[in-house]
């Protein structure tokens, strides 16, 4: 239960109970007051009836004007008592109505007596009919007022009991409610707060936090705890992400440093050559155009071509590592078909054979980037082959969540101590004067594979020659995270 709902229920219940208690008390006091008034009036009516009976008896012995006046006055007061009795509104109305009828009859008796007094000049004997009439009504009135008085006394006891019982009942309910409030406070507020405090302490001490719910009931504190947990989890995830990003940044900085070094070293080398050659040409031209001059000009052209090749390689590397959105479009395609397409694009020298073996699986990947990888590896295998006749075999197999592409050649192979070096940009195993190359191809392959969540594996030499380049390419793009 929500704390606000619980608090509202408790407040409303308390208000209702207190209201009921007040109402019961007011009702009890009002009703008891009315009943006491009615009981008092019933007793006074009994007294009045007794007085009237006494006066009727007196009339038998002293029938004079004083007795008749007293009788008439007492009847008037009896009338007045009945009016008050009717006004008390304490129930027993049928009985009150019967009392009124009897008082009416006594009033008639009184009128008859008054008429007799007038007719007989002050002293008169009460006729038997009048006496009987009076006695009948006075007996009935006395009986009724006695019963009324008894009823009221009993009703008073009953109401007092009911008021006491209802007050005790209401007090008991209020006590229960207070206990329930305390239980609600402890379970719904205290326990979660203590749990919350412990969790904050664990976080402050960088301890493993308890997975248990802080609050069992669905209330505001649970919402706060859940929100806190979510935010804490998000903060932890952000922290982890920052760590990864920091590592990536460090590696990126290292790449940048390597690149800067390579760029400064390798790009400056042909430039120095061009500058030296240009100096030589200048020196030579002072003597005239000699065969030596021609050789130097050719050398100058070669250095310029190398610089161009290096810059082209650098551009390709940059393009490959900063793939455009088009290049990164993921589609599902047959890798065998892709291989055939690459074969069609390559200018394969005579004496070389490029083939694929086995069934090549279908993959879901950025097709353009996989093509760049495969094409570079095949070109590399042909380019660095040391014989006129050679063979490059391409195959692919599924291994878990990866497709492993193998490009195997029968070339000279790569000494294992250079396996790391060959994937660095501008690194070449032979002098560019011996083998003209940019040193970008394998570096670009390594970078793309890494970016796609795969890895490049170099296995060479296979026996005494040959090299196997294995590319572990994610069968589906989401595999990248797993590899990372």
């Amino acid at each position, binding site marked *: 239960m929500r704390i606000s709902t619980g608090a509202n229920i408790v407040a409303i219940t308390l208000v209702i109970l207190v209201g009921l208690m007040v109402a019961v008390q007011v009702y009890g006091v009002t009703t008891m007051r009315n009943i006491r008034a009615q009981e008092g009036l019933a007793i006074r009516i009994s007294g009045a009836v007794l007085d009237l009976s006494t006066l009727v008896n007196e009339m038998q012995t002293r029938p004079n004007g004083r007795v008749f006046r007293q009788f008439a006055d007492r009847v008037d007061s009896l009338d007045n008592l009945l009016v008050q009795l009717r006004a008390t509104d304490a129930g027993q109305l*049928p009985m009150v*109505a019967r009392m009124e*009828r009897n008082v009416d009859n*006594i009033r008639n008796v009184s009128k008859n007596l008054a008429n007799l007094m007038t007719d007989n000049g002050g002293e008169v004997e009460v006729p038997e*009919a009048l006496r*009987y009439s009076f*006695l*009948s009504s006075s007996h009935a009135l*006395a*009986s009724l007022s006695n019963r009324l008085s008894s009823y009221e006394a009993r009703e008073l006891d009953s109401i007092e009991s009911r008021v006491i019982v209802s007050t005790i009942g209401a007090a008991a309910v209020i006590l229960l409610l207070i206990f329930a409030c305390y239980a609600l406070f402890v379970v719904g507020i205290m326990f979660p707060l203590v749990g919350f405090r412990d969790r904050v302490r664990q976080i402050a001490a960088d301890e493993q936090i308890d997975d248990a719910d802080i609050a069992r009931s669905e209330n505001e504190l649970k919402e706060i705890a859940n929100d806190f947990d979510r935010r804490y989890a998000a903060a932890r995830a952000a922290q982890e992400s920052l760590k990864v990003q920091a590592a990536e940044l460090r590696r990126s900085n290292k790449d940048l440093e390597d690149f800067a070094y390579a760029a400064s070293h390798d790009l400056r080398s042909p430039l120095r050559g061009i500058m030296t050659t240009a100096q030589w040409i200048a020196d030579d031209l002072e003597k005239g155009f000699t065969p030596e001059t021609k050789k130097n000009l050719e050398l100058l052209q070669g250095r310029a071509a190398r610089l161009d090749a290096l810059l082209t390689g650098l551009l390709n590397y940059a393009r490959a590592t900063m793939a455009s959105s088009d290049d990164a479009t993921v589609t599902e395609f047959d890798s065998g078909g892709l291989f055939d397409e690459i074969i069609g694009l390559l200018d394969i020298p005579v004496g070389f054979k490029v083939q694929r073996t086995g069934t090549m699986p279908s993959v879901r990947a950025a097709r353009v980037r996989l093509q760049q990888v495969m094409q570079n590896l095949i070109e590399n295998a042909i380019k660095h082959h040391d014989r006129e006749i050679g063979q490059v075999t391409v195959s692919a197999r599924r291994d878990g969540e990866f497709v492993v592409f193998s490009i195997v050649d029968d070339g000279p192979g790569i000494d294992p101590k250079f396996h790391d070096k060959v994937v660095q940009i501008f690194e070449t195993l032979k002098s560019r004067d011996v083998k003209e190359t940019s040193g970008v191809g394998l570096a670009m392959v390594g970078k793309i594979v890494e970016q796609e969540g795969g890895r490049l594996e170099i296995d060479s030499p296979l026996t005494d020659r040959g090299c196997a380049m294995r590319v572990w390419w994610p069968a589906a793009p989401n595999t990248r995270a797993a590899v990372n």
Partner: protein
Amino acid sequence: MNKLFPALILSIVVLLQCASGARAESLRVATSTSGWAIWIAKEMGFFEEAGVDVEVELVASGVAAGGGLIDGNYDVATMSGFAFVARSFNHPDLRVIGTVASIANVHLIARADRGISGPADLKGKRIGLRGGSISEFFLGRLLDLHKVRPTDIKTVDIAPPDLPKALSDGVVDAIVSWQPYAKQAADGLGIPSVDITVQGGQSYYFDLVVRKQTLTQRRGDLKRLLEALVRASEWASANEEAAKTLLSEALDVDRRDIDTFWHSHSIDVALSQDMIFLMEQEAVWRVANGYSEGAVPDFLERIDTELLSEIDPVLVTVIE
């Protein structure tokens, strides 16, 4: 032993049947439409809840109920106190165990065109009534109070249902009767009428009467009967409108008539001192007017106050 065992079983079966038969015997109660408390208790199921099996039979009047009680056809009969007094001269075994109502419904309805505006104008007039009934008793009291001698008027004995027509036809100058005939007479007259309450303020009682033998033999059932009637009285007092509707439906009486008669008919299970005083006056009147013979009974002995006192002593105000 072989012969004794079946005989023993048979005896037990017979005894059990007798016992169950005794338990199942119902209390036969005869009452007229005036026994409102009895009809309410019956319709509300108060008898069953009190644990007494009551068989209520509707009779035309208290006279018929009293006759059936004396003949042994009923265990309990309701009748006016006046009817009880009439029976008590020759049937000293009758006992009143409580009242079921206090009634003030006897009226004198007079034709205004015959010069009647008050009791004193009744001299020389023909008055229709049921001879020997409570109507005649209360008329005597009225005449006595107003110094009109019985010989100054001429009473005509007419069955109550015929009284309205006798008045409207001019056969009599006035009638004295209880409800609903008094109202029917006033309503059906067609000319101005004069309504005089002959009872003054004094009510007469509608009593529960049993034979002494029944009081002895079935005391438990009678107590439970009284308990149910006390409950009916309390229920009617607390649920006036519902009680009127119930009576209207149970007795097939127009609801407007029930409304009219309600205040003059107090459902009240009690035993009060004024009831004895009234009985004695009625007995004296009956002897004086030749309707009964013999000494006036001691009515204190003809009333059993113990049953009702056991239920609620407040209900008994008889001075013992």
